[in-house]
């Protein structure tokens, strides 16, 4: 790649006229510093308060790098790339990278936190009322912002304050007729509706005692209970109920001798298991080829159909003597202006067998979305309607950039209009529009909305309810990953990596081919 003249001149330095320091120069530098300082002033205190040192370090390093970048005269290209890239990194690259890393773990329902959290959840979850222990009258209250229990022993009428730290004696409380606390020093008592609104917090609070835990039972009773399952660090196992569950670090579960596991597990690294599961699981690999085939047909038909229709309309309007082009353009752009998700839902209702518009117009009684072939035709038609105005817009523009002399020259040389289009116009159009076509292909390959809002993947054959006739890989895996079996993020992430690989490979091949074309025609 040749370095252009300007760049070469800059590299030689001395030949360039010395730039004077203008007011704009100074003002812009001050503005950059002021904005950076304002962001830091806003962002730093909460991070310090929360003790999040790693994000604080990242923030400091990023601010320093950005301040340096805009104060120095070097790295001109980076000055223009950084603003967009910062957002790209934070909200697109980071989520994608994080998703890919979860593909190597068992992250999902039952495996959300670390092992300590799992042990805690198992122990508190197994608390049962200890035989003979008192049932306290409980009043929920707030100490500052913290939820606490005011507990009244039914026998002694002694009031204690229970918090997550433990139980302490509380004097000076006033009791009501029902035995609940009306007021107490240092805390504000919650009224019944206020307590009801915090029901989840109340049932989550466990007050540790010498022999177990005090937990709420409803909104006005609390009982002392003992954990029936107890973690023993010595054997790295959980004991209780006459059984022993030993930690299995490869599964992220506590497992007993019979191979059963406790419901609560923790997140562990599972290596390539998720990827192997995609390849070897018969329910998945059995349908994979069929779904992939239809997925390719759907994406290709959507892109090529939209392109063909949009381009034909643009070509028809592209004539010096054509009248009414402004009005036609507005009408053709209308489908694109309508909110896509709403129109998908409207189309779904238009295909309805009983009161749908399509059957009314055609005088038929076809259950469009009920049969595989008609449903496939339907979703492609809907996608064509949604997508062709975009292709119409971009080809309209691209056509006007093709010098009219070229097609005229072809006509003078005796080419038929079709040949002139095929040999001159279309190749020039493709050079310009290939990146857009490829990105449209990638978009449609993963077009979740187009399926989820119309057929939801259906129709489903009676004998295999897992996969429907119009399921794309993405809707199919969405159901697999988040459906009846609970959320399995790690597994879903592995499937996304596969989908990404497929789309990227197809796009790369298309790109190489278009590059060759560009060398020929451009």
């Amino acid at each position, binding site marked *: 790649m040749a370095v252009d003249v300007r760049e070469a001149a800059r590299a030689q330095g001395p030949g360039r006229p010395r730039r004077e320091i203008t007011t704009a120069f100074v003002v812009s530098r001050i503005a950059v510093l002021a904005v950076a300082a304002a962001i830091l002033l806003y962002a730093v205190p*909460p991070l310090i308060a929360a003790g999040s040192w790693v994000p604080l370090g990242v923030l400091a390093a990023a601010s320093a790098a950005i301040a340096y970048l805009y104060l120095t005269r070097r790295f001109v290209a980076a000055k223009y790339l950084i603003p*967009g890239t910062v957002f790209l990194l934070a*909200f697109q690259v980071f989520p994608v990278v994080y998703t890919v890393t979860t593909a190597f773990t068992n992250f999902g329902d039952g495996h959300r936190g670390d092992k300590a959290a799992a042990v805690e959840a198992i122990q508190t979850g197994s608390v049962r009322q200890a035989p003979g222990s008192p049932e306290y009258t409980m009043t929920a209250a707030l100490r500052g912002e913290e939820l606490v229990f005011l507990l009244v022993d039914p026998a002694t009428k002694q009031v204690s304050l229970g918090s997550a730290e433990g139980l302490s004696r509380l004097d000076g409380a006033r009791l009501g007729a029902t035995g609940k606390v009306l007021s107490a020093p240092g805390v504000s008592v919650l009224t019944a509706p206020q307590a009801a609104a915090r029901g989840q917090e109340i049932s989550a609070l466990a007050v540790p005692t010498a022999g177990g835990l005090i937990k709420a039972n409803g909104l006005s009773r609390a009982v002392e209970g003992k954990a029936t399952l107890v973690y023993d660090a010595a054997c790295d196992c959980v004991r209780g109920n006459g059984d022993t569950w030993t930690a299995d670090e490869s599964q992220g579960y506590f497992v007993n001798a019979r191979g059963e596991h406790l419901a609560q597990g923790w997140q562990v690294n599972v290596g390539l298991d998720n990827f192997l599961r995609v390849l070897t699981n018969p329910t998945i690999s059995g349908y994979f080829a069929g779904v992939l085939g239809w997925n390719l047909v759907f994406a290709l038909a959507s892109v090529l159909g939209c392109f063909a229709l949009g381009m034909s309309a643009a070509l028809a309007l592209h004539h010096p003597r054509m009248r009414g082009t402004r009005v036609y353009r*507005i009408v053709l752009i209308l489908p694109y202006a309508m909110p896509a998700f*709403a129109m998908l839902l409207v189309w779904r*209702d238009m295909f309805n067998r009983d009161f749908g518009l399509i059957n009314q117009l055609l005088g038929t009684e076809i259950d469009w979305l009920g049969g595989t072939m008609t449903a496939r035709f339907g979703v492609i038609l809907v996608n064509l309607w949604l997508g062709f105005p975009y292709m119409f*817009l971009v080809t309209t523009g691209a056509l006007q950039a093709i010098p009219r002399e070229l097609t005229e020259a072809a006509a003078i040389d005796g080419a038929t209009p079709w040949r002139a289009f095929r040999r001159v116009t279309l190749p020039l159009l493709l050079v*310009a529009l290939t990146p857009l076509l490829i990105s449209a292909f990638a978009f449609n390959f993963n077009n979740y909305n187009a399926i989820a809002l119309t057929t939801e993947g259906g129709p489903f054959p009676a004998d295999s309810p897992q996969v429907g006739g119009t399921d794309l890989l993405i809707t199919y895996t*969405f159901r697999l990953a988040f459906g009846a079996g609970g959320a399995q993020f790690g597994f879903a992430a592995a499937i996304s990596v596969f989908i990404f690989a497929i789309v990227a490979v197809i796009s790369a091949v298309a790109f190489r081919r278009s590059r060759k074309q560009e060398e020929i025609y451009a």
Partner: protein
Amino acid sequence: MKMALRHVFVLLVCAFAVFPILFVVSAAINPMGTLASTDLLPTGASLGNVADLLTSDTYPFARWFFNSVFIALVSSFAALLLSMFAAYAFSRMRFAGRRVGMLALLLIQMFPQFLAIVTIFMIFTEVTELYPAFGFNTVWGLLLLYLGGALGVNTWLMKGFLDTVPKELDEAATMDGATHAQIFWRVIMPLVTPILAVTALLAFIGTMSEFLMANVFLRDPESKTLAVGMYGMIAGDHRNANFGMFASATLITAIPTVGVFLWLQKYIVSGLTAGAVKG
């Protein structure tokens, strides 16, 4: 004769484009306001659905409308600027990783987004705790999130356009002692208004109908955008009864977009012109 054929073809495409919209219009002015009673041609005309929509207590439609237009305008303007900066660098400067950077922009868009939503949810759970002003249910948080998509296929479009603006122009300006910033603002920007208009329209439309992210992000009825709010309108068993209101809302949602298109149309035709093809 050939002209007539062109008109016939375009009219056919127009009919295809318009008939579902006609159905929506018919549903919007249908006095019954239900899906089952709607035909292609209106059986009666009333503005009852629009009135219901604007006075509804359950659905703060005016608020949603304001949220959507505000988010779409601000985010497309900001995204335009960020994208233009990047396109300028990609088109005019030579640096290591230029080609890779351009390709990476396309590749990132190919990753299935729905899983990234899990991560985005986790990021913003943290952000909501630290900086409530940019957290869930806020316009500013959603704006930040949308700016993550500022660099993408639009950057390619702009770069293609910039490649057609003769380099001699900025070389001449450099000779006269202009800095790169002066070239960008005084030489390049006035020349690229057409492609700015096109990408502005694309970004505006994209943001107006964005649903997946907004649905996770906005839970509070007052903070919803049109896409999220309207989806809730015909969710579950409201589907039939609220269809007239939903159709009116759909039409009203299209108004700002058509407005932006009419406003930008004079730039667009010449804008796409050079936009895509290298001269």
